[in-house]
C-alpha cells in the first residue's frame, strides 16, 4: 500500500517538477490562434479552457501549489500539535486544562470558516494558505495525541520505565511518542488530503493563489461554470489529479500506520 501511495505522490511531484520542460504550451497565456473551450484533440489532448489555454499544460503545472500548501501545513501541524499534546497531556493539571480550553475553542468552529478567516487576515499566497490550514488542523493533532498519551501513560510499560530509572523525557520520547505515532500518521494523511481540498476551497473564494499561477483548485472552480455547456474536460483532469493526490497520501498513511505498529505486521 505504501509503495502504491508513494508511486502516485512521487509521480505527481515529478510531473509537476518537470512541467516547465514537458508542457507543450504556456499554462498562463493563450496563443491567439488557440480555440476557446475546445474538446480534447490531437493538438490539445486535454482540451482548452474558456480563454483558450491548453489544459494539459495547466494540469502538468498545477500541482505545485497544492503540494507546497499541503506539505507545509502538515509540517506546521506536526511541529506545533504533537509536542503541545505530548507535554500538556503528560504534565496534566492546570497546564493541560488551559491548553485544552484554547484548543477546544478553536475546534468549536467549522474548519473551513476558520481557514477562510485566517486566510482573509493574512491575504493570499502559498505560505498563508498553509498557515490557515495548519490552524484548522492543529487541534486534531493535539486532541489525538493528548487522548493517546492519557491512556498510554497509565500503562505498565511506562510505569516499568519509570521504575527502572528512566528520565522523564526518555519516557516521553522512547515509550510514549512511538506508541502515539501510528495515530498521528493517520491524522496526517487526512490532513494532507484535506489540505488539498481546503486549498482548492480557498482558491475558489479568491483567498488562494491568483490566476497567473496554474493551480488545479483554480481550474476546478473556474471550470465548474462551463460544465453545463458540456465542457467536461476543464474540470475533469484537474479534478482527477486532486483525487489521485489525495488517494496517494491516504495510501501512504494507511501503509505507514501498519509499518509503524509492529503488532499489525504479518
Amino acid at each position, binding site marked *: 500500500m505504501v509503495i502504491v501511495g508513494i508511486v502516485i505522490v512521487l509521480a505527481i511531484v515529478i510531473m509537476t517538477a518537470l512541467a516547465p520542460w514537458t508542457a507543450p504550451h504556456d499554462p498562463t497565456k493563450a496563443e491567439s490562434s488557440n480555440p476557446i473551450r475546445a474538446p480534447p484533440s490531437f493538438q490539445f489532448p486535454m482540451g482548452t479552457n474558456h480563454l483558450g489555454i491548453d489544459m494539459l499544460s495547466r494540469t502538468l503545472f498545477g500541482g505545485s501549489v497544492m503540494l507546497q500548501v499541503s506539505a507545509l501545513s502538515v509540517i506546521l501541524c506536526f511541529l506545533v500539535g504533537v509536542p503541545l499534546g505530548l507535554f500538556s497531556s503528560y504534565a496534566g493539571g492546570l497546564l493541560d486544562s488551559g491548553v485544552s480550553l484554547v484548543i477546544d475553542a478553536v475546534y468549536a468552529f467549522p474548519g473551513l470558516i476558520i481557514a477562510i478567516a485566517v486566510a482573509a487576515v493574512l491575504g493570499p499566497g502559498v505560505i498563508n494558505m498553509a498557515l490557515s490550514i495548519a490552524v484548522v488542523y492543529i487541534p486534531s493533532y493535539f486532541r489525538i495525541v493528548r487522548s493517546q498519551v492519557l491512556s498510554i501513560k497509565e500503562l505498565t*510499560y511506562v510505569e*516499568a520505565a*519509570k*521504575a527502572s*530509572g*528512566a528520565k522523564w523525557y*526518555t519516557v516521553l520520547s522512547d515509550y510514549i511518542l512511538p*506508541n502515539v505515532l501510528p495515530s498521528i500518521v493517520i491524522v496526517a494523511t487526512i490532513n494532507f488530503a484535506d489540505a488539498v481540498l481546503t486549498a482548492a476551497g480557498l482558491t475558489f473564494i479568491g483567498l488562494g493563489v491568483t490566476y497567473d499561477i496554474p493551480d488545479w483548485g483554480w481550474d476546478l472552480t473556474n471550470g465548474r461554470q462551463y460544465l453545463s455547456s458540456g465542457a467536461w474536460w476543464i474540470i475533469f483532469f484537474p479534478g482527477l489529479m486532486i483525487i489521485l493526490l489525495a488517494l496517494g497520501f491516504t495510501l501512504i498513511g494507511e501503509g505507514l500506520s501498519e509499518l*509503524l505498529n509492529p*503488532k499489525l505486521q504479518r
Partner: protein
Amino acid sequence: MTKTPLLEINSLSVDYRTSRGTVHAVDDVSFTLEKGEKLGLAGESGSGKSTLGLSIIRLVPYPGVIGRGQIKVDGKDVLKMHEDELRSIRGRRVAYVFQDPMMSLNPVKRIGDHFVELLRTHEPTMDRKHVMERAETILKDLGIQPERIDDYPHQFSGGMRQRIMIGLAIALNPDLIIADEPTTALDVIVQAKILDLLENLRKTYNMALILISHDLSIILERCDKIIVMYAGHMVEYASSAELYSSPIHPYTQKLLRSIPNIELSDQKLLAIPGSPPNMLNPPKGCPFWPRCADSEEACKRKAPPLVDVGNNHLVRCFRHDEKGVLVE
C-alpha cells in the same frame, strides 16, 4: 554500632485522596530487610501490598500520597531524595517486576533495545555492543534463545515476557527485587518455573527479594519472612516456618486453612466469610472484626496495638496483646 539494613521502613502511611474521601491504603507499617533476605507480602486485593511495594521506589500512582514515615535504602531516606538521586536508585538498587507481563514491555521496542535503554540510563558510557553481549548472556540464563534479541515483545508468550522482565530486573545487579504478583497472570506450571528462575538468579547475585502475592502458599514456600496485610495494616509478621506452624492472628489462621492440601484430601476448605472492608469507610477498631469469629467488644472500639510475642513474631490482635511486648 548496628549495621544499616538494606531496607528500613518506619511507620509508613500511604493515603489515596479521592474525591469521595481518603483511603488509608497503607497504615503505619514498619519492617526491615537485610541483604539477601526474602520477604513475602501477603493479603487480599486492596490490602495495600502493591501500594507498599510501589512506595519503596516512590511510584505510588495518583492520587496516592505518602503521608508519614521513612523508607530508607542503605540508610538514605527515599522520601527525601531529589529526582536524580531517586532515579539512580530505581532500576539500579531496587528493581521492580510488575504483575502484567503482557503490558510491561514497550510494544514498539525490540527486546535488545529494552536492555540498551536500561543499561545506558545507568551506565551512559557503556557501548551498544557491550550491552547486547550482556543482554544475550542474560537471555541465555533465562532460557530464551539469544537470537531472539531482535524480536518484538508481541512475538513472545506471557511466560517468556515475564522471564524477560526478570532479566531486565537483574541486569544491573540490584540489591533488591520487588516482584509484584509476578506470576498471577500465568498458568501454574509456568508460575513454578518463573519463581524457580527468580530464586536461582536471586541466589546467584545475592539479591534481596520482596515477593508480593495474594497466594499465601507461594509466599510460604518461597520466602524467609512474611508480612500479612489486611486493610492497610500489618496484622502479622513472622518467619515462614513460624507463621506456618503457629499463626496467631485469626486472619492468618483462616488464610492458612483456605489453602488446599493434597495430603489431606478429605479436609474441608474453609473460606473466610464476608469480604474485605470498604476502604473509604473502614470499620472502627480492628478492621478485621466484622469477619472475625473471635471478636470481642474491645475489637470494635479500638485498633489493637502491634506486639511482639517473642522471637520477632509480631501480631496486631487484642487476644495476644498481654502475652507480648509492645512494639515502639
